[in-house]
């Protein structure tokens, strides 16, 4: 059939109207699952070599501080007679005799301290305390800070004004003052608590350590609160919040389900960066003698005790000092890596 060149007649091919073959259908099937927020972030994180190395370092430190002490032949408070101030890998005379008699004696890898306690296990216990303080204090800070910041931002107006002025004030009071005063103030109630059944753990943990947690809970959430507030201020203008409100969702649920879930990236990053700063503060407090109770060691108190013998036994100082720097460094690098992975907007 000859076609008129100016006609609008379509040139239809009957084959185009046949049902699709299996082959053609296959090309339309979504082969991969859609990439979720978490997967996307983890994929980026795994590519980051520095962050992966930090995770490995943190895991190794955790294994040594939480698992190894339970089957280590020495305990952190056991004082071996005649084994005072041993150099690393050195044996005391009694231990040498025992060795000569054919017994197996586990070496003091890092030597012993002036009371004859094995230093390696003390360092491990010390890093356990430091890690625990870092993690628990950060958990407290995360909960209080995100709740406070999101409430201030969500309700806005004078609620926000008053809540943020309180934050400013807490920023201005010297924290050392509050820490010392609180540890004095908490001594009596905590001592009372020790007597009650079921609260015996207070004694092992020590009043000072508990007051450190309370101080963190009272003071150090302000940075987190500011961070969350600035995020929520931005997010609460989003359409989905208006939609949720139109559907009659309660305020608390909007904050929990919509606002906080949406600043999860910021929360992860701020939390990871808060852990080293908590460890930092704890070691500083222990160094001042306001930290954990004897005989429980922390990396800060170990370093503090070692200062007096610096001339003769420098390794007693350098081991905890190096370890604490290593822990803080790896958490910092991990935090940087997480920020690049989960919150690319924040980069630089």
């Amino acid at each position, binding site marked *: 059939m000859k076609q008129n060149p100016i006609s609008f007649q379509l040139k239809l091919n009957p084959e185009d109207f046949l049902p699709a073959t299996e082959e053609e259908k296959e090309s339309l099937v979504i082969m991969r699952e859609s990439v979720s927020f978490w997967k996307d972030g983890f994929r980026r994180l795994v590519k980051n070599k520095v962050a992966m190395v930090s995770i490995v370092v943190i895991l190794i430190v955790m294994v040594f501080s939480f698992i190894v002490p339970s089957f280590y032949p020495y305990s952190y408070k056991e004082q071996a007679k005649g084994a005072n101030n041993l150099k690393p890998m050195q044996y005391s005379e009694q231990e040498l005799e025992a060795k000569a008699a054919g017994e197996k004696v586990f070496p003091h890898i890092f030597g012993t301290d002036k009371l004859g306690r094995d230093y390696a296990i003390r360092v491990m216990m010390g890093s356990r305390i430091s890690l625990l303080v870092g993690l628990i204090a950060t958990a407290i800070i995360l909960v209080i800070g995100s709740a406070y910041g999101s409430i201030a931002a969500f309700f806005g107006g004078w609620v926000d004004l008053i809540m943020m002025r309180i934050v400013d004030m807490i920023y201005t009071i010297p924290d050392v003052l*509050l820490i010392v005063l609180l540890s004095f103030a908490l001594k009596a109630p905590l001592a009372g608590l020790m007597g009650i059944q079921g609260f015996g753990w207070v004694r092992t943990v020590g009043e000072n350590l508990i007051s450190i947690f309370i101080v963190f809970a009272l003071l150090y959430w302000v940075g987190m609160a500011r961070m969350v507030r600035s995020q929520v201020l931005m997010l609460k203008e989003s359409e989905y919040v208006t939609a949720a409100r139109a559907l009659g969702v309660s305020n608390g649920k909007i904050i929990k389900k919509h606002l906080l879930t949406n600043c999860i990236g910021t929360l992860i990053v701020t939390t990871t960066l808060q852990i080293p700063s908590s460890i930092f503060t704890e*070691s500083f407090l222990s160094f001042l003698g306001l930290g954990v109770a004897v005989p429980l060691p922390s990396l800060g108190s170990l370093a503090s005790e070692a200062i007096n013998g*610096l001339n003769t036994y420098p390794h007693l100082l350098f081991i905890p*000092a190096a370890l*604490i*720097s290593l822990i803080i460094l790896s958490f910092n690098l991990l935090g940087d890596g997480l920020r690049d992975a989960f919150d690319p907007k924040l980069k630089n």
Partner: protein
Amino acid sequence: MLKYIAKRIGLAIVTIWAVATITFFLMNMVPGGPFLSEKAISPQAQAALEAKYGLDKPLFEQYITYMKDALHGDFGDSLKQRGRTVMSIITKKFPVSARVGGMAVLVALCVGVPLGCVAAIRRGKFVDSFISVVATCGIAVPSFVICTVLMYFFGVKLKILPTLGLTSWKHYIMPVIALAFYPTAYIMRLTRSSMLDVLGQDYMRTARAKGLSQVISLFKHALRNAILPVITYVGPMLAYTLSGSFVVEKIFTIPGLGGEFIGSITSRDYTVIMGTTIFLATLITIMNVVVDIVYKIVDPRIKLK
């Protein structure tokens, strides 16, 4: 501008008052007192001492009296160091801390800002990665570690620097390095990241395109914009550093305000605690106002309201 400064000063006074009030009541709420720890003190002597300093009166009355005196510039006598006023303690100890702290801040700025700029300009090169690694490590090392390591190598092993006291210029080297370490690393990171931001801006390309030399475009356009976050950080940091770091003062036995403050807290020297807290709070709030004004000078686009 003047109106703004007046408003800020008004707010600052409210903040200082609030901090003083909180500290006063918190301090007194805590069990124990300044004269309880002293050994062999009879109840009569203790009562007499408390009466002398007005500690036997109701708490609120003490507060009113203290605030009245403080407004007249009288911060009272030290309860523990007999015969010395709080003012004389602060005026004697603060200059010592301020000299060490001031030098440390100067070092931190003179080292941190240029190195941060260099890292940003040579982004991705060896210099950049080197500076970034140093800065990251610098942030991770607590000050007492730096102090003791410095002391061990320069004081004990090499014996080239004195370890105790503050009598010659040589004594200043180690405390200043120890104090400046963290701020230097932090300023390096801050300068680098904000400089990277600025270098990517359109006006930097324009500046180069219109034929400005690299030096002028860097100093007049880039640095001026990139320095703002550094100023925000340096303000409060300056206040804290000037008033003395307890750790550094303890390790190097420097008779400064930081050590005095901690000492007064543990010995419950109420008047010294109040005096130093008010002093520190004032210093911080002044620094915050100064930071805002410097902001305006550096970046005229910023509107103060």
